[in-house]
Every structure is written in C-alpha cells, then in structure tokens.
C-alpha cells in the first residue's frame, strides 16, 4: 500500500497523469500541431521522460511504454523513408494521432469545467423537516437479510484497483519494448549497432541505446555521419567526419 501511495505521488509531481498529457505537453511546448512530423520530433524527449518515471507502478508505466513503441515507429519511418511498415503498424500510428487529438479536445473542454465548477451553483431545496413521525418498515428487513446485504456490500468493493483491465493484453516492460523495436529496425535495415551502443544491461542503459540509435539515424539523415555496413548482420561501422563528436553530444 505504501508503495502505491508513493508512486501516485510521483505522478503528481511530474505533472503528467498519462502518456497523452506528456506527449501533448511536449508538442505544445514547441508550438507544434499534432501530426507525424511533430510526433517524430518529440520522440527522444518522450522516451527520456518515460525513463525518469522509473519508480512508477508497472501498470502505469505500461501505459507510457505502449505509446513509446508507436512513437519509435513514427520516428523510424521519418528517418528511413524506405522502411516498410505493416498495415498494423500504419494503423497504430494513425490511431495514436487520433487519440491524441481527442485527448487534446477534451483537455481543452476540461478548462471550462475548471473555471465553472462550483462558481454559479444551482441548489436543490434543503431536506424538508419531518413533521409527522412515522415508522414504516418493510417485510424484507430481517436479521438474516440485513446480514447478507452488509456482507455482500463489503465483498463487492473492488480490490485490485490498479490492475489495468483495458491495456492488459498490451502490457510490456520498457526493456521488452526496446528489444522488440531494435529487432524490428535491425531486420528492416539488416544491421545491428552493438559497437555504437555498447553492452546495455540495465533498463537505463537500454534507453540510452534506443535514444542513441535514434540520434544516430538522425545524423545519418543529415549526412553528417556515414554508416558503412560491410556485410549484412555485421556491426555497423560509423565513420565520423570532422566535428561530429560535438554533434553527437548535442543530439543525444
């Protein structure tokens, strides 16, 4: 119980109730609109942020991870125009955009609620005073029935309130997600990037890997780094041009 309480507190302090609020904030802080381009631009920041949520409840983390996976798809697509996405992957992207737009709409409407709630209230009349004293029981009230009703009321109370019911089929850890995405990219590009990333063991290191990977792809796109691949499935050789080191630091 204590753990859950602490975790919920973490959500409050970071200020993001869920993945969409975080994503929307990243997009809006750059004064962008919701589309594939803006989503690909905020992917790194999003992943870094999710990584800092490390001590959240797993069920809450999984909400963020599911979205991270789609963002990485979008990012990869924008960096690698030749990358062929499956229909399922394409619809995941469209779906994320649509959900984000809906979330944005209701978040805006929520401002009306925030500013009007409790301001000009309508009141129902007060409880009328009971003038005539009556006692009108009902045959359904017996010792046994009351005991049953009371016990059932207690048993009905939901127990595991944090169990994610809707996203349960999609629950994966950030490590699994990154492994999956790495494999996906590797097979698409027929490459790996062990040398670039080193041996990542902990979750934090793996996040660095994926962020680094994305940064590298960005550099490739900009023509700053040449990635040479001698044979399929062999490590990438990254040829650094002048002043590349600085750029890598900036990008990561």
């Amino acid at each position, binding site marked *: *119980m204590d753990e859950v*309480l602490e975790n*919920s507190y973490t959500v*409050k302090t970071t200020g993001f109730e869920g993945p969409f609020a975080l994503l929307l904030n990243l997009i809006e802080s750059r004064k962008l609109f919701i589309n594939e381009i803006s989503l690909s631009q905020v992917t790194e920041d999003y992943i870094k942020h999710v990584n800092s949520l490390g001590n959240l409840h797993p069920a809450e983390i999984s909400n963020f991870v599911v979205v991270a996976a789609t963002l990485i798809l979008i990012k990869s697509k924008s960096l690698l125009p030749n990358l062929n996405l499956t229909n399922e992957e394409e619809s995941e992207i469209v779906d994320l955009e649509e959900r984000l737009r809906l979330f944005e709409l209701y978040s805006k409407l929520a401002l009306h609620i925030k500013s009007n709630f409790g301001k000009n209230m309508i*009141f129902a*009349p*007060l*409880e*009328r*005073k*009971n003038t005539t*004293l*009556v*006692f*009108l*029981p*009902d045959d*359904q*009230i*017996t*010792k*046994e*029935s*009351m*005991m*049953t*009703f*009371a*016990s*059932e*009321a*207690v048993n*009905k*109370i*939901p127990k595991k*309130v944090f169990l994610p019911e809707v996203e349960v089929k999609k629950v994966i850890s950030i490590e699994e997600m990154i492994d999956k995405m790495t494999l996906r990219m590797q097979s698409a590009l027929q490459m790996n990037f062990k040398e670039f990333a080193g041996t990542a063991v902990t979750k934090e290191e793996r996040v660095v890997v994926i962020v680094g990977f994305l940064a590298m792809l960005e550099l490739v796109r900009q023509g700053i780094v040449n990635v040479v691949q001698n044979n399929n499935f062999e490590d990438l050789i990254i040829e650094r041009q002048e002043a590349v080191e600085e750029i890598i630091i900036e990008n990561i």
Partner: protein
Amino acid sequence: MNLEQKLEAILFFKGESISIKKLASILEVSEEEIKEALQNLKTNLENRGIILLEKENEVMLGTHPEMAGLIENLQKEELNKELSKSSLETLSIVLYKNGVSRSEIDYIRGVNSSFILRALSVRGLIEKSVDPKDTRKNIYKPTFELLSFMGVRNVEELPDYATVNTSISSEIEKLEEEINNEDQ
C-alpha cells in the same frame, strides 16, 4: 435579479417558514422592501403551481391547495412502497456500522447515497444526528423502532455483528486513503 426573484429562490431553498426580519437580514434590505417584494411575488405566483403562505411575520412557499389530494396520495405511495435493493443495502450498512457518515456509506457502496438516506429517514428507519467526534458532520443510526422490529435489543445482537462490523470499518479506512490519494 430583482428582489422577488431572490425571495422566491430563498423560500424555495429553505422549504420552511422564515421570518420577514430574517429575509431582510439575508438580503440586506429593509423589512418594508421585503413586504413589498412579497406582494409582487404573490402576484407573480398567481396561476402557478406554488403559492405564498403567510402567517403573521413569517412566510413560506407551498403547493397550490387544489393539488392537496394528489400530493397526499403521492406522499402515501412514497411511504408505503417496497424498499429497493439499494435502500436495503444502505440500511444494512447503517445497522452494521452503527453511527456511520454519508461519505462512509458512499465509499462502501461506490455511489452517492443521499437520496436513499433521506427516504430511509422519512420512513423512520434511521435517524440523523451530529457526529460527537466532529460537530460539522452528521452520522446515521438505526432507530429503536427498527431494532425492535427486527427483534434485537441493540446492534450487537445482529448475526455476525463483530465480524461484519470490523470488515466494514477496515474497508472504510482503506478506501478513504485511496480515494483521497487519487483525487487530490
């Protein structure tokens, strides 16, 4: 809003008689102005379903006398109708957690119970009193009539009282903690 509209809102909200002096103090005008506005209100209420009842220096709103028969039937029907499942459930919680607040009942049931509690009070099954631990709060208890109707002298004589009472109390503690935490 003019004075008679304000008077109507206050009288409707209170639902009981209120003195002209009190109305003047609430609305921060003279008693003369109140009397004048009450006259206007009376005119406004002609051909309406509610009327202004006056007695010496007190006034209240009431239903039109022509509706008396219908209202009386409505009242009887309301009192004699069978208790719903939700009413029985609420009643059982009041019995097994003697001296329970509305919000505690709401926590257990997962829904707001105010209308049900009102109806149970009207039927004389439960009674509202001020919480001795916190005078701003109200708590509900079963009436003596209810206990004797059930054939017990006190709540402790109810079947499995100790067990059920303890589990209700511990659930209330847990739920309050969680809900306060979620809904900051």
